[in-house]
Every structure is written in C-alpha cells, then in structure tokens.
C-alpha cells in the first residue's frame, strides 16, 4: 500500500509539473486529492490494514497529501503569477503620450516681477503701500521739492486732468502721503502705475510701473541706502552681482544716485544686454531731501531717510530679455503664458 501511495505521488507530481493552466491543475487536484480522488480511495482502503501497518501507512499517506497539496499550491501560485504578469503586460500604456491638460493660468509678467521685488523688500521689513494713479500736482511735484519750472511739469511731459490734478508721473507721491500719515519709523515700498507723455514704441510706454521705497528713522545714513539696495540687487539678480552708485540728480533726494548692477547676463564682461559696458542701470535713489521730510512734518534734525525708485518694465525686460515694451500691454496669451 505504501508502494501504491508513492506511485500516486510520483504520478501526481509528474502531472502537476506538466500542467499548463489552472483548469488542468484543478483537475489534477480533484483527481488525486478530491473526495473521490486516488489518494482518498487509497486511504479508504486503510481499514483493511493491520494495527501495526496503519500508523505507518497513515503517516506516508499524510506525507504524500502534504507534498501534493504543497506542489499544487505552488503550481497555482506560479500560474497566477504568469497570469498577473500577462495582465500587466496587456495594461501597458504609452507613457510618452502627454498628460491630461490641467488648466493653469499665468500672472502677467509685470506682476511676476513686481511680486519678486516686493517679496525681497518685505523680507527686509518693508510694508507694501499704495497711492492713487490720479494725483494732485502738490503730491507729485510741489511736495517733492520739484522746481516750479521743472520741464517734467510741462504738458508735453505730464498728463493733466486739471491745473491741479494729474496722472502721477512717478510713485514718489506715495512718499508724501506716507510721510503725512505715518510717524517714523517709516519703512514702505509703493508699487504702482505711472504715466508720462511718451508715444508708445519699443522702449517707451505712456503708462508704466514703478516701485518706490522709503525709509525714515533716526540715524539713517547713505551707507544704509547702499547696503539695502546691494542686498536687493543680489536677491533679485543673484549673489554674484555687484552694485555701483553713481552721483545723479533728483529734486527730492540729496545726495542722489543712479544705481548700476554688474550685468547679470555676461557677469560684467560686456554683452548685448548691457550694451558692452558690463553695467546695467536699474534704479534711482538718494537720501530724502529735508524739504520733502519737512513737508511731511518730520523733524529733519532728528530723522533722516532714504528713498529709491525703479521701473518694473525695465527690470522685467532685462530679466526676461523682452525687447519691446509694448508686448506687456498687448496681452497676447502666448506671451503671458510664457510666465506660468
């Protein structure tokens, strides 16, 4: 009987090995291990065995059952695995097809630039403030120490609404508003639209954006101005840029400076962007003229301050190598979407 069991085992093992699919395997299982299977029928015959033989054969029979069950399970697993692999293979996607398009809009490049500038100054403790686009002559010129006959006041340069009301030509009137409404320490930037009588061409626009900065506190020096703008330039254009302060003239600052940065495209060796000079002018700045502070009711013997202003279009044009300022106001979606 033992022999018979081993034969069953060998037979079954052979069939298991040869089986090619799950149906065949199931058949084998039924055939050998099922209620009417070979092994079962052999076991049924165990009743005729002697008491000594019975445990011996029983052990063998259990052993054979165990081996076969294990073999069938394994064979099933293997077939399952093959089947799984087959399924995965059938589910293969062309992953090179582009993904489902998600809607994503873009901020206007001027907003992108403005946000970047603001972020830097906010991190240095500046509050963002604003002023109206239609301003008084007083805030735009008089209170900023602009000479009465300054050519920028002409109707050929400035848009007027009436004799006393104009479209601001600079964001500097926000300085006046801030000085009149706040007590030092004052530390603000004021981004916004400005207007000048320039017919639009590749480098001129009758409307443009500026960011004004103003800091008034005790003991503010020109060295502080240099330090602040140096940090700003490095944050905006990269830590490798250097700044250069050139003497200049603005009615509302004294001393005044124009600030150049080393060309961030060529690093200062000279290229198309910097017109070969290695330097690019990015902003105007200076120590706030005492007349402006006085106009704002500030004691100039106690407080001093600095102010600066920069053109957002100019910085955006430099940064993104935009060669025509009109692109900003044409609002071609293909242009704007490049700044997503």
């Amino acid at each position, binding site marked *: 009987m033992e022999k018979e069991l081993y034969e069953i085992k060998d037979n079954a093992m052979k069939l298991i090995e040869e089986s090619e699919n799950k149906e065949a395997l199931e058949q084998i299982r039924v055939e050998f291990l099922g209620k009417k299977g070979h092994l079962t029928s052999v076991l049924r015959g165990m009743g005729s065995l002697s008491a000594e033989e019975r445990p011996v054969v029983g052990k063998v029979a259990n052993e054979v059952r165990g081996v076969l069950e294990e073999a069938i399970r394994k064979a099933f697993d293997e077939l399952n695995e093959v089947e799984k692999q087959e399924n995965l293979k059938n589910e293969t996607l062309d992953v090179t097809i582009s993904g489902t398009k998600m*809607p*994503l*809009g*873009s*901020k*206007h490049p*001027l907003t992108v630039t403005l946000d970047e500038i*603001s972020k830097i*100054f*906010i*991190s240095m*403790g*500046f*509050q*963002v403030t604003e002023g*109206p*686009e*239609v*301003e008084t002559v007083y805030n735009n010129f008089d209170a900023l120490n602009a000479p*009465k*006959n300054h050519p920028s006041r002409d*109707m050929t340069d400035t*848009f*007027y*609404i*009436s004799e*006393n009301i104009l*479209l601001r030509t600079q964001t500097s009137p926000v300085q006046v508003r801030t000085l009149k409404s706040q007590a030092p*320490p004052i*530390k603000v930037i004021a981004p916004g*639209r400005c207007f000048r009588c320039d*017919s639009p061409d590749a480098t001129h626009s*009758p*409307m443009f954006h500026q960011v004004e900065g103003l800091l008034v*506190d005790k*003991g503010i*020096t*020109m*060295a*502080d101005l*240099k*330090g602040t703008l140096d*940090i700003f330039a490095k944050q905006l254009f990269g830590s490798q840029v250097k700044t*250069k*302060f*050139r*003497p*200049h*003239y603005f*009615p509302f600052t*004294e001393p*005044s400076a124009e600030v150049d940065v080393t060309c961030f495209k060529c690093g200062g060796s000279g290229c198309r962007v910097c017109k070969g000079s290695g330097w690019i002018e990015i902003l105007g700045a200076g120590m706030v*003229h005492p007349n402006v502070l006085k106009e704002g009711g500030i004691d100039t013997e106690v407080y001093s301050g600095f102010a600066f202003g920069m053109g957002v279009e100019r910085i955006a044009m430099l940064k993104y190598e935009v060669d025509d300022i009109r692109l*900003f*106001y*044409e*609002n071609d*979606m*293909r242009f*704007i979407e490049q700044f997503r």
Partner: protein
Amino acid sequence: MLVPISWLKEYVKMDDNIELKDFCDKMIMSGSNIEGVHEYGEGIKKVVVGKVLKVEKHPDADALFVITVDIGSEELVIVTGADNVHKDDYVPVVQSGGWLPGGVKIKKGKLRGIVSNGMLCSAQELGFGDNVVPSAIKEGILILDKAYPLGMDIIEALKLKEETIEFEITPNRPDCLSMMGMAREAAAVFYDTLKYPSTIIEHETDDIKNYISIEINKPELCKRYTARVVKDIKIKESPWWLQKRLMTSGVRPINNIVDVTNYVMLEYGQPMHAFDLRYVSGSKIIVDTAADKQKFITLDGTERQLDSDMLLINDAEKGVGLAGVMGGLNSEIKDDTNCILIESANFDADNTRMTSKKLGLRTEASARYEKGIDPNLCLDAVNRACKLIEELEAGTVVSGIVDAYPNIEEPRKIKVRAERINALLNLKMSTDEMADLYRRLEMVVEEKGNDLYIQPPTVRLDLKEEIDFLEEAARIYGYDNLDVTVPKGNVQGGRSRKQDLQNIVKETLMAVGVNEIQTYSFVSPKGVDMIKMPEVSIKRNFVKLMNPLGEENSVMRTTLIPNMMETLVRNYNRNIGKAAAFELGRVFLPSHEELPHQPISLVLGAYGHGNDFYKLKGMVETVLNKIGIRDAEFEPELNHSTFHPGRCANILYKDTCLGIIGEIHPDVAENYDISVRTCICELDFENIFKNANIEKIYFPLPKYPAIDRDIAIVIEEQVYVKEIESIIKEQGGKILDKVELFDIYRGKQVKEGYKSVAYALTYRDADKTLTDEEVGKVHLRIVEALKNQLGAVLRD
C-alpha cells in the same frame, strides 16, 4: 554737452597718459555722467594734403570733373563730382588703399572711362557731422585753409585727432553747460587748480561812450546788461582751429564774429549776441518788455507776434533783439558789417522760458538762460570775446565797457556743520579733510570749530543751503568709498489685508486656468459705446485728460470691460482658439472730492471651446468661495444692453451687487467683429473686499451615515433651478445635508416647453442614524411641495 578733451586741457592740467576710459570712469563717479565718446581721426589712413594742379571737365559726364593733384611724392588724377575745387586749392586726398572713418576703404576705380586714383574728401568724409559742417562746404570738398606741406598726413595737418566726450548735464548743474564748468569738475577730480582763459586785450582805441548807452527798464527780468563795441570789423571765415573746435563741440561755424560769440558761449556758458551797430539807432539800448501784439522779425526771418510779458532789446526806435532767445533780422551781422555791439547779458530764467515756449522758439541761448546763469559771467565773457576778435585780427576793440548791473549779486557764504555731513554719510572726516574736499571744487572754506563756512563759486547757482553741500562732499569723497551697512531697527514688513486678498484672487484665477492681463488706465470714450453701456450709466461720466496722446487714450476708464473685449478680440484675431483672462485694476469715477474715486475692479473674460457662461460662472464662484463669499445669488438680468438678455445675471450678496456676469450681446460682438460667443464678468473688488472672510473654522466631520435619494422632475422650461432648489432646501430642513443638480434633460421623453431636472439629495442627521422612514417622510414632502408650488411632475 560735447566737450573736446583738448579744449578741457587748456584750463586743467591732466596727466597726458591718462587712459580715456580711466578719465571717463573718474568723471562719471564724481557726478559727471557720460553718454558717449566720439573719437575724431579714428579710422583715417593714407589721407594726405594735395594741391590742385588742374581742373578739367570730364569728357563723357557733365557732372564730373577730372582733377590733377600733387601730393608731393606724385601727381594723381582723380575724378570727382564736387564743383567747388579750383586750381591751387589745397585739399585732402585719399590715396587708393586708404581708409575713411566708419571702415570705408577707397580703391582705384574707373568713372565713365577715366581711372580715378583715389578721392578728394569732404569734411563729412573726414568724420564731421552733417549738422556742424559749414553750409558753404556741405555739398563739396573741404578746401584747406592754407598751404600745408604736400603729402603731409591730413591727421597731422588738420590736427584731426580729438576725443569729444558727451556729458549728461543734470538740471541742477547749468554751470556745467560750459567748458569752464566741466574743467572745474575735472580739476576737482584730478587735484588741479583751474586756469582761466585770458581776457587781456592788447590794444583798445576810442571810447564806447561815443557809441552806446544802456538802459534797463525791467531790472527784475534783466539782472545785468554788459556790452562792448568792436570796430573795423572784417567778416570772414574763422581759422581752422576755431572751426574745428566748434564742430567737435557740436556747433556749426558761420563767420569769425558769430563763431567767436559761440566759442565764448561754449567756454563760459554765457550766451552772447552781436548787433551791427549801423542799424542800432539813437546809440541806445533799452531793455524793456514788448508792446502787446508787437510784430518782430527774428534772425531766422520769421515774423513773430510778441506780448507784453516778453522782454525785448530795443534801440531808440525799435526792437532789435528778443532778449535771451534770438536777435532781430534788422540788426544782423552781414558781410559788410563794420562796427558791432557785443551783448553779454543776464536775462531772467522763467521769463526766457515763457517767451521761448509761447513763441515755440528754442535756441541754444534760450535753453541756457532758462536753466539759470550767473550774472557775474557777463563781464569776463564779453572781454574774452573782444580778446578773441583781436587775436583773429577781425576788428579793433573800442575801449570802455557799458555794464548795467543794478543789483550786484555777492557771493554767498553758507554754514555747513561737519558733524551733520559725517552723520548722514556715516563718515568720520575731520573738518580739515572735509574743507579740502570743498576746496577742490574751487570753494572758499573757512573753518570755525566744527563748522565750515563755505563760499562756492558764484556760478554754482545750485548751492544754497547746507543740504546742497552734502552731495558735494559725498561725490568728491566718492560714493564708492562710503560704507555699506544695513539699517538698524526692526520693523515688520508685509502686505495689507486688501493686497493679500488681491493676491489670493489672482492665485485662484490662475489655478482655474485664467491668465492675468494689464491694460492702459486711459482709454477711448468710445469704449462704452462699443459695449453698449446703458445711456443712463454713471460709467459714461469720465475723468478726462487735458492733453491726451490721442482720442484712444483720452479718458480714464470707468469699467474694465472695453479693454477686456479689445484684448480678447486681439487674441481671437491672432488665431488663438480660446482664451480666458482677468484684470484687476483701478477704474476712475468723477467725484466731488479733490481727486476722483479710484476703486479697484475685477474683470474676467473668456471665449472659445468650453469657455461658456457656466464655465465663467464656475470661475467666479470658485474665486468668491475661496475668499469666503459663499452662496452669492445670481439674479437674472434681462435689460443690460452689453449682455445677452437671456444669459446675464447680477451677482448679489447680502443685499449688495458685487457685479454682473453674462454672455456678450450679439450686437456688442458685432461691434468688435468677434464671431465666437464671449463671456464677461465684472466685479466691484471694493465690495468683495468688504464682504470677504478668509478666516477658516473647522466644522466637525459627520459621525452618522448619510442616506442618498435622487429626485427627477419634469417642469416648465422657464422655471429657474434656483426656485426648485429653494423649495427643496426649505422642505428638506435640518436633515438635508446636500443638494446636487446632476442632470437637465430636454428631448424625446419630455414634452416640448418642459425640461427634466434631476437632483441627488443627501440626508444626514448630526446626532443620530436616520431611518428610511424619517427620510421618506421628508423626501415626500419635497416632492409634494415641488408639485404644488411649481407644477412639477415626478419622473420615474
């Protein structure tokens, strides 16, 4: 301001070896910004002095001449088109293989059968600008002023090597519109003392009293009037050195007398004018305002109508010069002029500016007067002019000067606190060191304790008070040499709530695929007509510009819709299939206050596949929800002429109107010539801001399960879903958790004029598990109410 370096070097010693770049850098960093450098004589090769031996007509070309020139080493035959060349003239000759400025190479060539062995040059070809070459030789060859050695290099003969620097002069420094002014700056930079030009006249005769007297009737408009007389005038061309100097300084030579007045103007910054004394009657100059509507012909031959604010130079009978602007044609220097009066006067800046502006006549003189000139220059300038005329042997100077200077301007002395300068510049200079900085700028400095008493040169009209000396110290010390520090003090930076909210709106719109645009604040008044803005709308009242660039930018916008339409149409016309855009910007509404009301408005616009009314509405709802404005009502608006009457709604929230949304009316679309459906929404951002609430509060998650029930009804077409939903919500009460519209169907199974509307309702109780019975009761109530109130029929 064009400054030839050789001229500058007459007044200030500079190291001859200093590199041009170094010179420029130092000048820039001390405050004299440079706009450009022109190097005369660069690129000229194999151009020599030649003498014309023969001038013949070209046998086969009427307009050409065949010239034989001797250049010392050989005789060359050259064909030229110029007709101002004569036998024995000395001319510049480019030999074949020679070069002219701008990389022009001259080669031997045949002109109508005759070989030309080079070229004769004009002044322009040697590098002088068309705007400065004397009119007489503009069209011809430059005839040399004397017999230079034949074959001599033209650069050497005419001393063509010159570097001219173009300085940018800021409005506060009119004194720098002169060689002396720039020399003063250079002297400060290069530690030198300024050398003044000679004004010593060798020989004077006669007495000016026999010729002229001066009267100033308007001393407030003419601070000083100085004049001298020169007789035995011989008008001729100026010598080459003078012509070249003027040309390299940007001034066209005219004749010796005019050239001298221009030379002195460039040298001192003092405009001058020469009258032919023959035509000055009564031996008198009277400075007075003109009569109203007085006619006067200026040098340029134009008759001008003056008014009683304009200052006029008169003789005993008539006007002879428009003060500070232009001389009169009646007293102009002519070729036969024999005796001249040289005017060196100081006219009021504002008055000159006003006259020049009213007449639309801007001259070199008026441009200088209107910026302000030191009256103390008059005397030196007139003497210098006489000195030069004598030197040029162009006349004999009459002795004596008439000098009317009613209120002499004394040099100012200003107290400057060294401590203050040091504090603002973060320096620790001693008073001695500081005084030295000022002395370098030709200032007289007296030290008293910690203070400096500074007397600047009188030409420095910009230095009036202590603060003006701060920049002088800073720039001579060098901005570069100042410390770099970070401001002390700790102030918190950030944005206002309103700015934050604008940013959130922008970010949200970007997230739903809308691009931001920026358009002009000034627009055409026609825009509101284009969008058919209702006639009664307050948005038709504009804040108008007095001096717009054109009608299309003549009023401040009152709505952002026209600009949005233009942008969308521009994109549509560029074959961009679909677009969605927004703008967040100010509009301008007239107000009774000093300034117009300038609130912020938000506009959205979209066209193209998928960008329909509901898409735009979804975008708007997303934005409103994001900033805490939930359940804004969209109330149908049937009468706004900008929009499609059946596709437009006012957006209401807590009894205020936030804005309007709709599809553009076909008539408006036609106005813009856009043939796709376009949707627009404009929102009052100020109102949104007032109602926004971005605070978040946690709402507990549901503890008990929900029961879902669908409901589908057939209802008349004109019933708004809002009506259905409000009934559902009303009847659903506390246990109705969510109502979602999932289908609207019109078609076969539904009667004409009806629609099938289907909702998914979610019931849930916060405190217990609902039973089917409880839900069934409420659900039935809803169905009944829809039936009774709206005539809805339940669909199965």
